[in-house]
Each structure stands twice: as C-alpha cells, then as structure tokens.
C-alpha cells in the first residue's frame, strides 16, 4: 500500500508540474490583431509532421519545416504569435475553424476540400512524384494499373491513386498515416509504388539511394498542383491579410530564403548500424526527453481517465442492478444498460474523434478531451466488472444487512460494495493496463503521447525500427512495474480472507 501510494503521489507531482508549464505558456500575450482568432493574439496552426521537408519534428522536438517557417513569417506580418498543433493529416480540414485558425501541411487545393474550407493564394507549385523500387520499370500510368499503390491518407496522392483504382479495379491502394511506413513497405515489396509530392519524394530517394528512386509525375501524366493555406469558410479579412502577407514574402526575398533553407538544402540523416540508429533515435538533440514527455502524457491521461472510469463505472454498476419493489428492472437500470451497449459497441478511436470534433468541439485542451473520452469509455467496462463483483457477493450478505434494518443503499455501501470492489480488483487492474495502452491513439487529437513521439522521431530519422521498438519496451517496462505494484496492493486487501 505504502509503495503504491508513494508511486501515485510521484505521478501526481509530475502532472502538476506539467500543467503549470502548460498554463504559463498559455498565459503568453501577443499584441492585439484586427481578426478574431481562436485564442486572442495567437494564430493557431494545424499541421501534420511526417512530410519532410515541409513539416517534420525538428531537433528541438517541435514541428519544423518549410511550411512551419513560412506560416511563422506570415504570422509576423499579421502581428500574431503562431502556435503550431501537430495532428493526423486527415483530421486537419475538419479542425480548421474550431480547433485551429488555419492549416498548412503541403495541402493541395482541390474542389472537394474547397467545399469545407477556403484557401489562400497558392504559395508553392508541386507536382506529384512516384517512388518505386530501384530497377523497377514503371514509367507510365498504365504500369500503375493493377499494381499495389501507396499514399498518405487524405493527400493529393491519395486522390490520384483513387482515380487509378477507379480506372482499373485490379489496382490495390494502401493508405498510410505517414510516409516513412509507406517507404518501408515499398522497400519490403509490400507495395509497388508510392504517389507523393516532389520534394519529399526526392528526400526519400536521397536517403535510400540505391534502394528506391523518384520518378516525376509528368511521365505518368499528373498535373501540377498548388499548395495553399486552408482557413475557415468565409473568413474574408483573414484571407486577404494572409494573401497580402504571402505576396510581401515573395517580393521581399523572405520566401526564397526559406526555400533555400528547407527545400534546396540536403536534409535527412541516415544511420546504418543499429548503434547509430539508437543514437539518432534517443540521444541526438536530447530526443530521450521527447519519449519521457510522451510517457508522462500517456500516464497522465491513463491515470485521470481511470479515476473518471471508476467513479462513473461504479455509479453505472449500481444503476444497472437497481430493482423496483416487484423485482423488475428500473429506468435507471435501462439507461445504464444502453450506455454500456453503445460504448462497447463502437470503436474507441471513433469515440475519441466524436468527442474532439463534435461533443467538445469548443475545447482546446486535448488532454481534457482525451481524459473525458477514455474515462467515459473505461466506465462502461468498469461498470460490468463491478457489477460482476457485486453479483459474486453472497446474497446472504444483503439479506443480513436488510434484516438488521439497513436500507438497500446502506447495505450496499457498508457491506456489499466493499466486498464487490475487492472481488473486482484483479480485473480492474487489467482494465487500467489496457487503458494505458489504448491511449496510444491520442495522436488523433494532436497530443504527443509515447506512441506519437515514436512516430514523430521515426519520421525525423526516416527509420522506424528503433523508435517503435524503443516505445514498445518503455510501455512494457512501465506496465510490468505497475503489475507488480498492483499485485502488492491486492495482497494487502486480501488480508481479511486469511484463515
């Protein structure tokens, strides 16, 4: 008991420290601007790292790249401080206008996207490239028909690949959240070609020279595309201000400077030996601190979600077993049953996205949304665990309490529930451990938890092996320690059973 209390207080101290840092950052005040932004004086920008050199996680652990440098310059011209939020690419468009003011992520102007957002003037012309294995003779659109294609979900490459699939039903399309995984599968022969933008294609070709090559989309008949900044529909003031800033940047040479810095420079490190890979995944630019912060975030979300889950789950379990004086189920029991059915019958990742984009769409605090979503999800499972724990308590205990003059609620509180919770402890521990691992999807709501950090670092180093295995090892060690501590707690609680 003592050890685990100390452990939890340690976690609490860390969380409080993290929250204080967050709060002080949020307190920053920029000078006032004439447009309404989500946070006054701040331009909140959505991007999706993993698309070098336009956006990736820089050496300091923050998003960097052409787009990031570019939008920061735009922000300067608008008199706004720029805050960058990293999220999954396919969540970007939906988050414009509620979670972010604008999105910049090498996003091509398409008619479909125009229905959801307005675009600035284009700031970059791109042509889609095709990455193939070295020695492959794919050079025309016909070669792509019937092949296995890869693209990043929601990108222009995805749209082009969709057209090819429509034209030839033998064609298989695999979509990825990030390019490094797609490139890995290309090398492994799981896909035949990746459709992506020119600059990242050339970056990957340089890093994996001798294994893959980049072919211009001209040869496949792809059209030139224009990258632009996405913003909420009807934001005319913001739009004209951004367009003016883009024109100014192009005129005063700032644009060329950023192009030279990011796009024409040699990017990407490649490490060959496993030791080099380890060094670049953990030690270079203090990347270990990113894993540590990711782990703390993971534990913070899991811990508070577990608290929410246990409190609401217990209430749901008590509601579920209520009976009226005729022994029939009550309306409370029905409500609880429906809640549990809905939560158990839908995927957790969808519940998280629904919470983020629909139910709590005005909340900017991703951690809060994640805690609520995971807590409400866990509550359904906790409710069933505790209900089973209550049913496992001998019915004589309830009868003894009632015949003494206790009400049903009093008997529950003093006699049955304490025994039920003790019965439920081992499955509750399992539930907590599952919860800790299930938080690995919070990247969808722009949070950098342990899994997301591993992904970000594999994007930056172009080599997924060490970051992914490393994150798995960290999860394993933390969960092993937790299992041991919870085992101690459980043995303490079993004391009254010793004969």
């Amino acid at each position, binding site marked *: 008991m003592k050890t685990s209390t100390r452990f939890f207080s340690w976690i609490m101290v860390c969380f409080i420290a993290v929250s204080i840092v967050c709060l002080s950052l949020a307190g920053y005040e920029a000078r006032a601007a004439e447009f309404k932004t989500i946070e006054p004086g701040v331009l909140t920008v959505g991007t999706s790292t993993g698309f070098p050199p336009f956006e990736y996680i820089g050496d300091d652990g923050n998003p960097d790249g052409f787009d990031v440098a570019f939008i920061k310059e735009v922000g300067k011209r608008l008199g706004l401080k720029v805050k960058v939020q990293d999220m999954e690419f396919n969540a970007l468009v939906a988050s414009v206008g509620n979670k972010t003011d604008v999105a910049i992520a090498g996003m091509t102007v398409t008619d479909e996207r125009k229905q959801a957002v307005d675009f600035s003037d284009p700031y970059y012309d791109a042509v889609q490239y095709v990455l193939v294995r070295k020695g492959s003779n794919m050079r025309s659109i016909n070669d792509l028909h019937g092949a296995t294609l890869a693209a990043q979900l929601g990108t222009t490459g995805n749209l082009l690949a969709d057209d090819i699939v429509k034209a030839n039903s033998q064609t298989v399309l695999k979509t990825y959240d990030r390019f490094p995984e797609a490139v890995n599968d290309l090398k492994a022969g799981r896909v035949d070609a990746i459709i992506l933008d020119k600059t990242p294609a050339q970056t990957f070709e340089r890093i994996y020279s001798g294994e893959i090559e980049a072919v211009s989309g001209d040869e496949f008949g792809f059209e030139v595309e224009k990258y632009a900044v996405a913003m909420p529909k009807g934001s005319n003031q913001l739009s004209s201000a951004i367009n003016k800033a883009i024109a100014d940047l192009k005129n005063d040479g700032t644009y060329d400077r950023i192009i030279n810095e990011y796009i024409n420079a040699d990017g990407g490190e490649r490490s060959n030996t496993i030791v080099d890979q380890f060094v670049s995944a953990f030690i270079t630019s203090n990347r270990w601190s990113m894993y540590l912060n990711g782990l703390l975030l993971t534990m913070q979300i899991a811990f508070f979600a577990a608290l929410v889950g246990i409190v609401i789950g217990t209430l749901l379990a008590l509601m579920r077993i209520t009976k009226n004086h005729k022994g029939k189920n009550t309306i409370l029991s029905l409500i609880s049953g429906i809640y549990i059915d809905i939560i158990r019958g839908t995927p957790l990742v969808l519940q998280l996205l629904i919470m983020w984009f629909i139910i709590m769409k005005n909340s900017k605090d991703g951690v809060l949304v994640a805690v609520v979503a995971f807590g409400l999800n866990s509550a359904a499972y906790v409710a069933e665990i505790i209900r089973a724990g209550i049913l496992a308590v*001998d019915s*004589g205990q309830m*009868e003894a*309490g009632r*015949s*003494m*003059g206790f009400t049903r609620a009093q008997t529950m509180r003093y*006699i049955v529930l304490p025994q039920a919770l003790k019965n439920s402890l081992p499955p509750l521990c399992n539930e907590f451990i599952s919860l800790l691992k299930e938080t690995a999807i919070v990247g969808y709501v722009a949070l950098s938890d342990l899994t997301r950090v591993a992904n970000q670092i594999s994007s930056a180093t172009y080599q997924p092996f060490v970051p992914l295995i490393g994150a798995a090892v960290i999860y394993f060690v933390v969960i092993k320690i937790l299992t041991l501590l919870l085992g101690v707690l459980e043995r303490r609680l079993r004391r009254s059973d010793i004969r």
Partner: protein
Amino acid sequence: MISVKNLEKYFGDHHVLKNINYEIKDGEKIVIIGPSGSGKSTFLRCLNLLEVPTSGQIFFDGVEITDPKNDVNKIRQKMNMVFQHFNLYANHTVLSNITLAPMKLKNISKDQAEEEAMNLLKRVGLQDKANAYPSQLSGGQKQRIAIVRSLAMNPEVILFDEPTSALDPEMVGEVLGVMEELSEMGLTMICVTHEMGFANKIADKVIFMDDGSIVEENRPNEIFSNPKSDRLKSFLSKIL
C-alpha cells in the same frame, strides 16, 4: 404482537404458503417444525418481508408491515433474523459486525457501541475474537456472533432460520446453549429448527407445517407425545 392474516405466497406457479393465519404474543417462544419444502422458512422470511407475500396482511405491534406506506426498515430494527449460513459481514471484524447497525441506525457512539459489544461477547465467551474476521472463525463461533449481533440492536423479536443446520454436530450444543439463555430473557423468539429436544425444552408453542399450511399447533408435550394428525404422526415417526 405479531398477527398474520390470510397469508399467501407463490413462487411463480408454485403455491408455497396457503392461507396462513396466526397470532404470536409478546414474549412467546414459537418453534416451527415440518418436512423440507413445507414452507416453514418462507413463512419465517415473510414475517420480516425478506420474502414479499403475494397477498394477506402481517401486523407488528398494530402496524401493518405489508402496507408499502410503512417503513419496513424501522420494523426490522426491532425484529432481527439469525440465518442458517450465519451471514456475518465478511468485510468487517467481529466487533464491527456487532457495532455497525447500532452506530449507523441508532446513532450510538462508537465507544458505547463497542463497550456493549464487548459485554455481549463476554457472555458468549468470544471476547478474544473481537478483532478477528469472520473467515477466521468456526461455524459455531460465527453463529454465536450472529446472535450477539442481533442482540446488540435490543430487538423485541429474533427470527431463527434453522440456526444449527449448517453446523458440525459438536458445535450444535454451544449455539443451542446460547439460545436457551436467550429464552429466559423475555424476548419473543420464532425458530425454525429440526432440533426436537430443543423445541421440547424451550418452546411455548410448536407449529407443525406441511405442504404450505399449519397442520397442527400446540404446547410441545402435546405435539410430541400426543400428535393428532396423521401427517404429524408420520413426520415424528421418521425423525424420532
């Protein structure tokens, strides 16, 4: 003190109690005997509404407890029950088993409740078990604690539901001994049991039930030495 009128009880289609009418006077010791399945435990459990009667009325000190408007919890404080399987609160120590109800339901201070509990424990010779958990006790010890737990509420009536049936034979005596002592205190006791010697010794009245009805009711020496109905005769011939 307790009066039962036209009591009927069904479990589904099964007709368990058939038109029971009975009056119990203050301080009476009633023993209910009968074959398994005759409805004697159900009858006892109806008296404190652990089983809800299908129809009929039960009055306790003039209050109709079968009327949902009356608070059955208040009545149960005066009419405790001792169970076949003891049902001590598994998550509480012996002392806490005894003091929980007086403290929570009668607002008696912890010190006073514990003092009274220790006095009662001394009377049954279990004061050294005060801090033990129920799982550490023998069956006979558990049942003596269960009786003490009831006594701590100062009830007017204690219902005993086969209190010795789950005990090893050598422990039956210690529990019956405590119950005999109780019978001299002026409490009303209603006891379902198979211990005919005990019934003969302490009962004011013995009720013989069979097939959901009260077949015969009389003073114990009449029931045991002069049974009238054939069913009672056949029952006694099997067990004596």
